[in-house]
């Protein structure tokens, strides 16, 4: 693989991750958001794949497959089930409206570029230059958690954070040791399962699962 193709592929896939993240902020249809998440998972897997190809790293290749399976297929599937069970969560209800969210996202992306200068400086490379995109994904995800009211949006936000960190991992260190990678992916999966069970059970038991109603526990 030529160097320019590698860089191009890397930039394209990495950029796709961030674009998907921003799209989740933009779109209101939850179904679309989940689709974006699936696309992001696929892009992430592609990033890992490109890197694995470039570095000839078997571990990373396995990771790429794992990511593709879990984040590109399994997790979106679980989320679809949540949406199906909870008709109210078809459309998001942002605490901050969409244009403001997008502006904030832009600001967050700027912040992440500023922050990452020190990280890139340690070992400049084609991959590490792209780290700000990962960090921006983390921040956008976090922002989504803070500002989106539906339970699915929150799970998606959490996953965005996770994907962002995974992206950083790939770009900076070409993945963490496999055991850790396995563990963390499994953890993410389990968290989603747990959250899904919570939503499903609560829906079955208490009629609905509305984050707005979940403010009974307070001082």
């Amino acid at each position, binding site marked *: 693989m030529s160097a320019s193709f590698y860089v191009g592929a890397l930039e394209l896939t990495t950029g796709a991750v961030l674009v998907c993240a921003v799209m989740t902020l933009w779109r209101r249809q939850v179904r679309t958001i989940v689709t974006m998440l699936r696309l992001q998972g696929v892009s992430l897997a592609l990033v890992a794949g490109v890197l694995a190809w470039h570095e000839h790293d078997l571990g990373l290749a396995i990771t790429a497959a794992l990511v593709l399976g879990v984040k590109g297929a399994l997790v979106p599937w679980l989320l679809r089930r949540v949406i199906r069970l909870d008709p109210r969560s078809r459309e998001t209800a942002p605490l901050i409206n969409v244009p403001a969210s997008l502006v904030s996202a832009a600001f967050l992306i700027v912040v992440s570029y500023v*922050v990452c200068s*020190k*990280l890139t*400086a*340690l*070992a400049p490379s084609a991959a590490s230059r792209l780290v700000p995109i990962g960090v921006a994904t*983390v921040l956008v995800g*976090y922002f989504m*958690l803070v500002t989106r009211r539906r*339970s699915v949006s*929150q799970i998606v936000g*959490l996953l965005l*954070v*996770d994907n962002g*960190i995974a992206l*950083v*991992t790939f770009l*900076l*260190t070409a993945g*963490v*040791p*496999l*055991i*850790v990678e396995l*563990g*963390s992916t*499994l*953890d993410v999966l*389990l*968290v989603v399962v*747990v*959250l899904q*069970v*919570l939503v499903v*059970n*609560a829906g079955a*038991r*208490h009629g609905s*699962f509305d*984050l707005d109603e*979940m*403010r*009974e*526990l307070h*001082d």
Partner: protein
Amino acid sequence: MLSLFALVIPLVMGVIALVVPWRRWIGWGSAVSSAGVLGVGIALCVTTSSHGPVSSLHGALRADALSSFMVVVIGTVALLATLQTPRVMTQELEEGTTTRRHAGNYVVLMQAFITCMLTAVLAANLGVLWVAVEATTIATTFLVSHYRTKKAVEASWKYVILCSVGIALAFFGTVLVYYAALHSGVGKIGAASLNWTSLMAIAPHLNHGVMRLAVTLLVLGYGTKVGLAPTHSWLADAHSQAPAPVSALMSGVLLTVAFYALLRFKAIADAALGPAYPRALFIIVGLLSLLVAAVLLIAQRDYKRMLAYSSVEHMGLLALGAAAGSSLAIAAVLLHMLGHGLTKSTLFISSGEIAHAEGTTEIAKVKALLARRPVLGGIFGCALLALLGLPPFSLFISEFTMARAEVNVGLWWVVAISLVCLSVIFVSMTNHARHLLLGAGSAPAVSLRARSVAVPLVSALVASAFIGVSAWPLLSLLQAAAHVVAP
């Protein structure tokens, strides 16, 4: 080998509970398994203090004095918490608040929870440590929502979301440490570079800029799990909704296990960056936690939440102790972990009994406990005094020593601020306790149930008092454990 044994015991017990439907003996089995963990912990302590650190499972598990001490803490609190299992579950089954399936699940999840914590403290690899800490969240989610009430679901939702985000940041931090290690310029160590020992060895060569960001993210991330401000918010909700033994275990050890992770990373950061930066970080979160706990305790209306915020306070104290960083301070921090585990679990278990008996957790609705339920009220009161750091209980001596260590490194102003916060907390908590405990009321006959709760709790208090007066069996262990992460 021993450390593997520590993991296997609860794992086996969990599998048994998974396979065999709920029986009362399964409840007792979980207690026996905790006792086993405690026994292994003590054995580990003896081994590590005579032979130094021991590794097993091809170096995946590594027990040094610090890990062994943590195993003892986990074992002790787990024993206290699981001893309640048969009684609590039988009672809930009788009252129909739970089913046999859920009772079985409860035991399984408890064992899984304990296993995860043990893995966290015994893991040689900091990545595995992270995985284990994250796994505790998953294991405890359904424990928190055990009662499946709306509030319980709300609590566990908040718990999972907040902790997962937090712990994700910790993962980010861990990744950055790994990155710094890969590019430390001291040869390639590959997969082993997330091993704590190897990281400590190359710590002085780690890149400052990266390490700064890494340690900050770690403090923020693991800090969520520890319950440090500003990411402490899940704590009160989860602790107030979970079954009492679960709250006991969470507050008593889960928080300290997460703090253990911070201690490990702080040692690396100290070596890499010098003590000033990590110290500033720990001071900020520590003081912030104390402040938040103090203001939230003033007008607190729920006694379980009160206990939860007191955990925030104590974690803040631990952070300040760690900020001092001397071996004396770390020894005090460890002693504080043990004392806090004993005291807080006693409090949560007794408050669970109170909540069950009174049907409410509101302070305003519970009165004259000492007169009406002398045994329960007495235990709760004593444990509260212990929690407030009064002698002869061990929290006094650990708080004193932490303060002393902080002053010794010049942080007297920190001690001054924290003393102000502690005083406010003292006044608020005694004020709430006065409403809860004191007052006139007729004493009902002491039920047998109360006595069966009382024995382990009183033993815990006696143990805490004993440690507070003379910790001779622990003294050398504490010092050895402190030397692991402090110069």
